[in-house]
């Protein structure tokens, strides 16, 4: 890439980071209470909540990994990407109950909701915090790793320098303004992603001439060998509904993102950030439509790269994760500019989201579950320090330990579903759900999320392990709740569950 292009792209990215930093600093004055700092509780309208939820869900993995997977294995991944637009369904299922919790108690974290529903059961809170922290830290490390690689590939600077500049600034403004700054800067970053999405989708149609040309090019060639010696297998089945993956993968990649959208912390916590729950249907439209644009962008980039390879415009990719870069590099400067900004925006928004979530869990919910009391007047200060330490450690680990990032990266969407469904979905929708059931479901989820990494355990199935873990965790929660004595609901929980 020419020096001028690199400079223009870097300036654009720097302006975006500076604007995010400015929004974070401005938001500091609003983050005066624990509810505001940790949860942004009952503070925002549908546009801010909708855009920030979308930006939190559409991570750097979506913009880089999804086109890469579509390029590598065809359409199975589209089920995941398109299904995760299910914000309206998520709000229908749990929106009013999560928001109602903030009326019956002082709610600033998921742990607070857990306390109200399960009478401050410390074991439930600890198990839930462990699982969600694993998922959040994994996501955080992956975002930092992706954002750092993006910039250090553009200019020849050590990744640690790029990481400390970009994510150091992010850590600083997030620590200062908490969830308030996090949410507003995510909304801004979400808007960047949507603008980039619209333009790049138009570029896809302009370059390829539409889906029919892609199907004809990909279906007609059984394989392509480039001048770089890389071979790409194609063929008529490549762009059918399942792609080259077994059909069970499509089943998993439809159900887990769609139903699992309601189990993501970036969606759950935003439900009580909304000022008026009557705005949630509008929020569902905002987040659903904006996520649909970003989702379609990801699909179009995968299709675009396939078309360019199948028609011989570019060599087959040695690394499928380069699919989006290959397509925008073919389009020219403006496409590169928007794509790099969108990827960086996705990394920043998800990173700030998971930074606040994991530091709240580690500095507030987990200590309280372990019986460690922190003076409420010092809680914000403690969490601020904790967030800075966690941010710096995450940057260093992400840059210097690719093995650990890979390991943490396995704790993703499915891990979070297995940790939140027993507590929030079963717990807030079913009055018969009791502590014993939730403990059984969560304990299973903790063990079977960690066991595969420690022992190499695998279920006797071609399905991804997280799908099976989620299913069994939910089933255990239901069965154990039924065979153990019914618990009387406290007045707050009863009012919320009846709403």
């Amino acid at each position, binding site marked *: 890439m020419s020096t001028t292009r690199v400079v223009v792209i870097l300036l654009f990215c720097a302006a975006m980071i500076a604007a995010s930093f400015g929004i974070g600093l401005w938001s500091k004055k609003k983050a005066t209470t624990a509810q505001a700092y940790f949860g942004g509780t009952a503070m925002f309208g549908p546009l801010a909540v909708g855009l920030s939820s979308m930006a939190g869900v559409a991570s750097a993995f979506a913009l880089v990994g999804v086109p890469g997977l579509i390029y590598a294995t065809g*359409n199975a991944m*589209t089920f995941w990407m*398109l299904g995760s637009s*299910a*914000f*309206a*369904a998520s709000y*229908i*299922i749990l929106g009013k109950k999560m928001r*109602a919790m903030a*009326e*019956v108690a002082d709610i600033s974290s998921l742990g607070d909701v857990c306390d109200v529903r399960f009478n401050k059961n410390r074991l439930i809170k600890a198990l839930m915090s462990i699982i969600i922290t694993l998922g959040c830290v994994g996501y955080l490390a992956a975002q930092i790793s992706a954002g750092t690689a993006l910039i250090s590939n553009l200019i020849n600077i050590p990744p640690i320098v790029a990481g400390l500049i970009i994510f150091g600034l992010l850590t600083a403004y997030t620590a200062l303004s908490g969830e308030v700054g996090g949410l507003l800067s995510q909304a801004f970053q979400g808007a960047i992603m949507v603008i980039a999405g619209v333009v790049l989708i138009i570029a896809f149609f302009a370059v390829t001439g*539409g*889906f*029919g*040309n*892609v*199907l004809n090019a990909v*279906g007609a060639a059984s394989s392509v060998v480039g001048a770089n010696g890389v071979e790409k297998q194609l063929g*008529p*089945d490549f*762009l*059918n*509904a399942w792609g080259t993956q*077994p*059909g*069970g993968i*499509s*089943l*998993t990649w*439809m*159900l887990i993102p*769609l*139903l699992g959208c309601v189990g993501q912390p970036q969606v759950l916590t935003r439900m009580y950030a909304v000022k008026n*729950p*009557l705005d949630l*249907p509008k929020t*569902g*439209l905002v987040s659903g*439509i904006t996520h*649909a644009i970003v989702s379609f962008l990801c699909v179009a980039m995968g299709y675009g790269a396939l078309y360019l390879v199948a028609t011989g415009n570019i060599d087959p990719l040695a690394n499928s994760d380069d699919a989006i870069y290959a397509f925008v590099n073919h389009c020219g400067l403006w496409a590169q500019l928007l794509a790099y900004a969108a990827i960086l925006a996705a990394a920043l928004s998800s990173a700030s989201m998971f930074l606040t979530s994991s530091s709240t869990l580690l500095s507030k919910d987990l200590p309280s579950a372990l019986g460690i009391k922190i003076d409420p007047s010092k809680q914000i200060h403690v969490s601020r320090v904790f967030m800075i330490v966690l941010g710096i450690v995450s940057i260093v680990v992400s840059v210097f330990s690719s093995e650990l990032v890979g390991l943490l990266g396995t704790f993703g969407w499915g891990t979070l579903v297995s940790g939140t469904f027993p507590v929030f*979905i*079963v717990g807030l*929708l*079913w*009055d018969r759900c009791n502590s014993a059931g939730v403990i059984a479901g969560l304990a299973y989820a903790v063990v079977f999320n960690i066991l595969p990494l420690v022992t190499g355990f695998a279920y*006797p*199935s*071609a*399905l991804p392990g997280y*799908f099976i873990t989620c*299913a069994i965790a939910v*089933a255990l929660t*239901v069965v154990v709740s*039924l065979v153990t004595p019914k618990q009387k609901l406290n*007045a*707050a929980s009863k*009012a919320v569950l*009846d*709403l």
Partner: protein
Amino acid sequence: MNIQTKKTPIFVLIALLWIVCIVLGTIGHYVIGLVLCVPLIGLHLILGFAKKGVVSKKVLIYPLAIWAVLYAVAFILCGYYADAFAGVMPSFTVFGLHPSFAPVIFIYWIGGLLTIALGYYLLRDEWLSQKDWDEFCQEAKKIKEGK
């Protein structure tokens, strides 16, 4: 429809459907598994739409029944056309898309998403009205003061 007393059977069914889906996915019957995901997701939506244990008939018809039919049809068409054109170029396309993939875009994604999101917005009072929320806030205030 009053589901207040039916929540336990609904959750037993949800647990069963999760397990059946992983069994079907494991033994290769993924299209049936996909179709069974429709009641699995739909039961969550019914529970979420319920107000004081009651789901309005309007909501059950639109958006829920329409959404369920769209999803089931989309998955069946995906399976049918993927098998019909296995290993060969399809004899027709839908706006340029493979006939097994077009249902994913037009029915599962656009149709399903719009049905749920618009239905939720249009029938939002059936989910939570201002009156319901005001009454709840009064009750919540008493609960908080009671503490």
